């Protein structure tokens, strides 16, 4: 929204040349281990790291400035950094003047947000905020921001992202090699799924599903008249199902019972559907509730493309025949469509990608032949275009970069006497999301295969909890038992749990509160308490 496209602005290979890396709400050594290797190269070359994260992650130990801020205070922290930059005259006036709009509102907003004023609420030293701001603004031209779900999984997630964009525009740190704003995408094809128009309001290529001209174009290509009615996002679908408005769901390759917040409510809603179709490679928790279960093929059993975090569209190749009687997901969809009297006749995924290219400017120049040996990074407007290494060179996708003046908003749930701790959740190195894949690997499961909760030494000491003992984690929505991992990794007052374990699902605890724009759930903040197990 600030720049006009949602993706990493730089390429992975530019990371090693960054001289200042500002990591906020991301943990690359665990969630993106091979991107972390590029960052480690930068570290070896003497790059300066600023790390802001409530957990003392690997890079925190190697950072010049480490800000162990309280979950949910990102906007305050970044605004205070902008305050320092403006009060010390470190902003890039030329860049602001020529390439952006809306700056004055932001100047006005951060005028009084000094580090000293917010330090206590953010939970870090004012001097550290000042130092971080100075390093970010003026140490080097090659300065990049990296973030992931630690920034987005909040009720103010979109505001967090736009505030980071403000910081980058304020200093002109965008649109150059090794200089930009980089969301590291979590799943193998999350970038591609978004590119393909799998959101209620976006058609492929981020074209508005409600724009009459665009609807006309797609309607013509598909031989139908597209609906005017606004669609529901997944959390809204779950609510609708609960209230009886939604009768059927067709879910491919996702396990909302495990991955959506407030598991109890999700199960209740899905249980009310007249028809629940789940297409997956394993009988996941959601499939256990389904009326129909369809066996899909894994990535090793089909052809197609994935788009990675740096917008690179790459070939996925069939290596083995589908296991048992399972089928590639695209074949299944085509067959159902056919039986509902809508012909979907594709000889292979190659033809499907050609159709995407004909309808989406980002992918217009991409086809199977061109990516045979190496993937191409979108935007790629025609078949002679080499692809785009970094975005926003000279001009933003939307024209002028837009500053958004966004005040801090508190998380949906506040700690109190009954629930005094903040519970945050995420992913570890050894397991992947809901764990259906990695927990079935013998060598990986050997490293970790039980749910744990990271507790700060001080919090553990107060409660008489010792490292390794089983404890109960309780929120307003449920309770879960897990093994205590006591260390200084967690911030005092904050506990953290991984999301991989069905038998101790952290989403029995999390809150169904969502970002007002993207509908992303606030997995990073809810209120909890810890209890020792009886006996």
């Amino acid at each position: 929204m600030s720049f006009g496209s949602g993706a990493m602005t730089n390429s992975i290979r530019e990371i090693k040349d960054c001289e200042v890396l500002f990591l906020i709400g991301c943990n690359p050594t665990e969630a993106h281990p091979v991107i972390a290797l590029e960052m480690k190269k930068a570290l070896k070359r003497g790059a300066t790291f600023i790390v802001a994260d409530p957990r003392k992650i690997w890079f925190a130990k190697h950072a010049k400035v480490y800000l162990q801020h309280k979950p949910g205070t990102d906007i305050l922290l970044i605004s205070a950094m902008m305050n320092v930059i403006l009060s010390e005259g470190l902003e890039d006036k030329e860049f602001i003047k020529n390439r952006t709009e809306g700056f004055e509102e932001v100047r006005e907003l951060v005028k009084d947000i000094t580090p000293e004023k917010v330090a206590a609420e953010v939970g870090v030293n004012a001097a550290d905020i000042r130092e971080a701001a100075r390093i970010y603004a003026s140490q080097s031209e090659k300065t990049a921001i990296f973030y992931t779900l630690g920034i987005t999984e909040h009720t103010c997630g979109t505001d967090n992202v736009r505030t980071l964009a403000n910081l980058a525009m304020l200093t002109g740190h965008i649109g150059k090699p090794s200089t930009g704003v980089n969301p590291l995408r979590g799943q193998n094809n999350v970038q591609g799924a978004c590119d393909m128009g799998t959101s209620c309001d976006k058609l492929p290529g981020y074209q508005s599903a409600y724009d009459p001209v665009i609807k006309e174009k797609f309607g013509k290509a598909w031989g139908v008249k597209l609906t005017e009615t606004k669609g529901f996002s997944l959390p809204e679908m779950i609510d609708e199902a609960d209230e009886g408005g939604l009768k059927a769901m067709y879910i491919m390759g996702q396990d909302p019972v495990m991955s959506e917040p407030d598991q109890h409510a999700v199960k209740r809603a899905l249980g009310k559907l007249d028809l629940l179709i789940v297409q997956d490679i394993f009988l996941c928790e959601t499939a256990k509730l389904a009326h129909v279960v369809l066996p899909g093929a894994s990535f090793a059993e089909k052809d197609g493309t994935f788009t990675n975090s740096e917008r690179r569209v790459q070939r996925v190749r069939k290596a083995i025949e589908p296991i048992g009687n399972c089928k590639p997901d695209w074949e299944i969809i085509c067959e159902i469509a056919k039986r509902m009297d809508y012909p979907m006749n594709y000889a292979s995924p190659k033809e499907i990608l050609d159709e995407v290219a004909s309808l989406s400017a980002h992918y217009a120049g991409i086809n199977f032949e061109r990516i045979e040996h190496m993937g191409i990074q979108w935007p790629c407007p025609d078949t002679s275009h080499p692809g785009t290494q970094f975005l926003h060179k000279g001009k933003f996708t939307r024209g002028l970069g837009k500053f958004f003046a966004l005040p801090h908003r508190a998380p949906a749930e506040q700690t109190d006497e009954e629930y005094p701790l903040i519970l945050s959740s995420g992913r570890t190195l050894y397991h992947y999301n809901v764990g259906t894949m990695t927990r079935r690997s013998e060598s990986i499961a050997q490293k970790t295969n039980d749910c744990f909760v990271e507790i700060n030494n001080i919090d553990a000491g107060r409660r008489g909890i010792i490292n390794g003992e089983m404890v109960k984690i309780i929120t307003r929505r449920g309770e879960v038992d897990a093994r205590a991992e006591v260390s200084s990794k967690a911030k005092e007052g904050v506990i953290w749990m991984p999301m991989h374990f069905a038998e101790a699902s952290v989403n029995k605890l999390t809150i169904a509160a969502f970002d007002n724009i993207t509908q992303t759930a606030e997995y990073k903040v809810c209120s909890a308490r810890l209890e020792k197990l009886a006996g």
Partner: protein
Amino acid sequence: MAKIAITINDKTIKVEEDSTILWAANTIGAQIPTLCHDFRLKPVGACRVCVVEVKGEERLVSSCATKVWAGMVVQTDTERVHNARKAVIELLLSNHPTDCMTCEVCGNCTLQDLAHKYDVRESRYYAKPTGGIKEDRNRAIQFDSSKCILCGRCVRICNEVQQDEAINFIGRGFDMTIGPAFNDSLLDSSCVLCGQCVSACPVGALVEKQAAGKARAWELEKVHTVCGYCGVGCNIFLNVKDDKVVKVTSEVGTVPNDGNLCIKGRFGKDMVHHPDRLKEPMIRKNGNLEEVTWDEAFDYIADKLQKIKDEDGPDSIGCIASSRCTNEEDYLMQKFARAVIGTNNIDECART
């Protein structure tokens, strides 16, 4: 960067001034053998198998660790070079097992290839090597100390690239080996089981434990594809034999990962052939999911969806695409929602 002229095998070329001789020779296709060298690592010049002759230098120099200078004249394949390399290989084989016929990496071993190329049939200094497969309860990485040539690539990739500092050299002389502190299990060290050491090993000392004994190198078909885990999009090769994925490898030089992989990418392939995989469509009958034919499942779904669409309207149906599936499949799922059902109720798991 400034370019300078050098002459390799009587051919004059211009190369960047910080190139090594090895790099420069590569650009004109002059083959120089290497063992301790890996483009992902800083050169150390330990194995001496890459030695070349440089005009004006009394001794042979290691091409991997020597930078070019203006006017340098290099010969990569003279008799003197040939003899030196042969001697190095003979010394390496003096305490290396001669069990190539049963070795895991037979056909994919740099030392074996060099012995063949330089015709080293046996070592005059041979003494039966000590050591063997180390007992370690980890199920990912297998180390055979008798096969280790101490090139240090595993140690360096662990320290320089991975920066986990889990393994190092242990002991001195003939007793020297590599391993974690106190030579404990890798599971008791800072090792994260990324297997980068396996990817760097030029011989059969470090191999994927699960793949051991499953296939000869030449039986494996390597299918170039993309890892199915996180959003980095590492290029991988699924090594397939008899329709089974035996192991996962990568290659130096691939974009974006340059041959590097993490534990999930390298060792997370078990799920493909796991017995829990769904193999048949199922419909819930009398409360239980029962296996049915595809035909029955397709008809059931088409009928039910059509009925709900007709009775309650298209917006009473929701479709969910997947960040795990391919672009083509996600495209079809949103097209299915919009064109077949007639609703904008489409979403994916981008937010989790």
